[in-house]
């Protein structure tokens, strides 16, 4: 069953204005995030997946800014701020047309009051490198309670208690003692747990996780992914997971957006992306990964020829054209393929499917 829409991104363009030229990091991206669902954004470095996520929170680094498009946030009503503050929203779908407030995040001032109220409370983010994204000179407790005290009217003691509860929930042993420790005293996996605790401190409606497991070991990755799934069941937030690892996508996603060079190549539910990929980029990406067991007897991996083009020197027409096996001269280098709908929430940007 479809759950209500949480975030709708329409024709988002985020560009960076540098001396060397304009980098069109995100160039016309559309997708939807549903409540309680996990959306994975997958792509190689430079495809604009992180910038898309940062655009949602309006934390794009200078000299980048959103130049066009809308990020519509359908703010769910909160049941109550007391208790554990669960989000209410769907309940039998009848209340689907209840008065949800719609905010265009793209139009907000990046330094304004409105967006600051949303950051950390409605939408929070965890980053790739837990060492550099935690403050080295503040204790763990300090950093978690800061967000709590900013967005709620809890007192110091209550905030501390809440922080201990969160740390316990994310699986940190002896959480009372941990409040007084500094990030350098923790291992990589523990730091990532602290980040998650901090992000969940205000029961966000959306958790953006930007490569949360790239810097940790595979056994720690399994722990973190499992934790995120558990927390999603418990807190009911939507997760936008940004990753380059197709294995992680297959484990976590409900919906998938495949990006290439600032644009969406293809989007759809996880099963059709993996078992019925339409875009030549998705197809070759899936063929180029070594798979445990399956690749054992295969001699060579299929690889995509060439490399991701220079951002200052984007190809004309389809961004993937120069590396594509189905390249149609005169067509693919002339037209930037529009979104071709293949079904509900299923789209591909490729001229091969134009007639269908």
């Amino acid at each position, binding site marked *: 069953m479809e759950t209500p829409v949480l975030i709708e991104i329409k024709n988002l363009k985020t560009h960076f204005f540098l001396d060397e030229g304009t980098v069109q990091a995100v160039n016309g991206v559309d997708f939807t995030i549903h409540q309680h669902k996990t959306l994975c954004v997958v792509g*190689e*470095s430079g495809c604009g997946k992180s910038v898309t996520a940062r655009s949602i929170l309006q934390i794009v680094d200078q000299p980048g800014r959103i130049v066009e498009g809308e990020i519509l946030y359908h703010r769910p009503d909160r049941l109550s701020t007391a208790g554990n503050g669960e989000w209410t929203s769907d309940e039998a779908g009848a209340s689907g047309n209840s008065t949800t407030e719609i905010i265009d995040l793209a139009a907000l001032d990046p330094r304004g009051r409105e967006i600051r109220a949303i950051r950390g409370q409605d939408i929070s983010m965890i980053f790739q490198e837990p060492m550099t994204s935690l403050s080295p000179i503040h204790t763990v407790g300090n950093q978690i309670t800061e967000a709590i005290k900013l967005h709620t009217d809890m007192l110091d003691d209550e905030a501390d208690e809440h922080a201990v509860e969160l740390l316990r929930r994310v699986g940190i042993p002896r959480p009372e003692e941990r409040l007084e420790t500094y990030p350098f005293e923790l*291992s*990589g*996996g*523990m730091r990532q747990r602290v980040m998650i605790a901090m992000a969940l401190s205000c029961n966000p409606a959306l958790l953006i996780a930007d490569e949360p497991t790239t810097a940790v*070991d*595979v*056994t*720690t*990755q*399994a*722990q973190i*992914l*499992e934790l995120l799934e558990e927390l999603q069941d418990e807190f009911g937030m939507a997760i936008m997971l940004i990753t*380059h*690892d*197709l*294995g*992680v*996508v*297959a*484990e976590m*996603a409900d919906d998938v957006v495949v990006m290439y060079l600032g644009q969406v190549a293809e989007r759809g539910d*996880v*099963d059709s992306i*993996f*078992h019925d990929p339409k875009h030549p980029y998705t197809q*070759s*990406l*899936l063929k*180029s*990964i*070594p*798979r*445990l*067991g*399956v*690749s*054992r*007897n*295969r001699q*060579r*991996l*299929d*690889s*995509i*020829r060439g*490399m*991701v083009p220079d951002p200052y020197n984007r190809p004309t027409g389809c961004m993937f054209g120069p590396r594509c096996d189905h390249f149609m001269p005169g067509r693919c280098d002339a037209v930037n393929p529009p979104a071709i709908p293949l079904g509900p929430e299923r789209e591909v940007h490729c001229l091969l499917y134009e007639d269908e």
Partner: protein
Amino acid sequence: MSEQSTNGQQLSTSENGSAAAGDILLDVKNLQKWFPITAGFFRRTIGHVKAVDDISFQVLQGETVGLVGESGCGKTTAGRCILRAYDLTGGQIYFQNHDGKMVDLGPLSNNEMKPYRQQVRMIFQDPFNSLNPRMPVIDIVGDPLKINKVAAGKELEDRVASLLARVGLRPEYMRRYPHAFSGGERQRIGIARALALDPRLVVADEAVSALDVSVRAQILNLIKDLQEEFNLTYIFVSHDLSVIEYICDRVVVMYVGKIVEVAETEELFAQPFHPYTEALLSAVPNPDPRMRQQKDRIVLEGDVADPANPPSGCYFHPRCRYVQDQCSQETPDLREIAPGHFAACHFAEELTLAGVTASGELG
């Protein structure tokens, strides 16, 4: 030591009994590398990080041996010891010289190492930091030739050009600086540099970890092709099990400075004998959403043990789900469980552990 003799057997069995001694290219025996922990004004040594603690394995001519494990398990340190980038704390590294004699690289001085440095080369992980940004490609790739007086002048240029062409770069670009190349291309430059002196053994330390998926496949294929062409032997250090499975003939699994399991790749992945290997295999995300329901993932408790202060007995026992009393008291030896398959677990014979089937399922 019993460990060494069992390793000798492993060699003969893995080669169907036809292995001559000359087939061993590298024989690592009881290798140890401890880093001192110092404290106080006089930098007194108060302890050691046992990064590599008594490991033995062999590398045969023409094969690819994978060193796999999580961060801090000592796989990189082991690789660097083989290159003699570090001085050893203990143990021997026997390398087969051109004349077929085994030479212990361990005690050699820098000058004595020189001829071997041509034969043992390295590919680094980070294609950005491992190339000097102030040197054009011709110098990066050509310097080893110049320093070892292999080629100079026009000949050097020709050799660099052919090397670049071989790794898939355009020779015209040899006057360019590294910043003009993408990550994948830089890794190709690093490979060309490693191959410049016709090495016999190449240590590739996480050579594809920093690369994007589509480029990673290109580089992995290149590494495989070059092996056939130049009859190379690789030690492939990686944390990525799917890459290891794809490229390696034999795999050495390490945990906190020790070897926990050695086997041929297919066997190790299909039928692991050490609980750590099982957990490691189970933790790899499967790129197929339909496998999600079937998974019975083993999520390990806690973190990797501190190599400065490892647990008693088997280093893995605090996280092992099959732990018994004996595990915390006795350190298990690396034993041959099946022909050519070694594991360091007291209960290796009794446990039935799950590997990965050829269809990618855990089972």
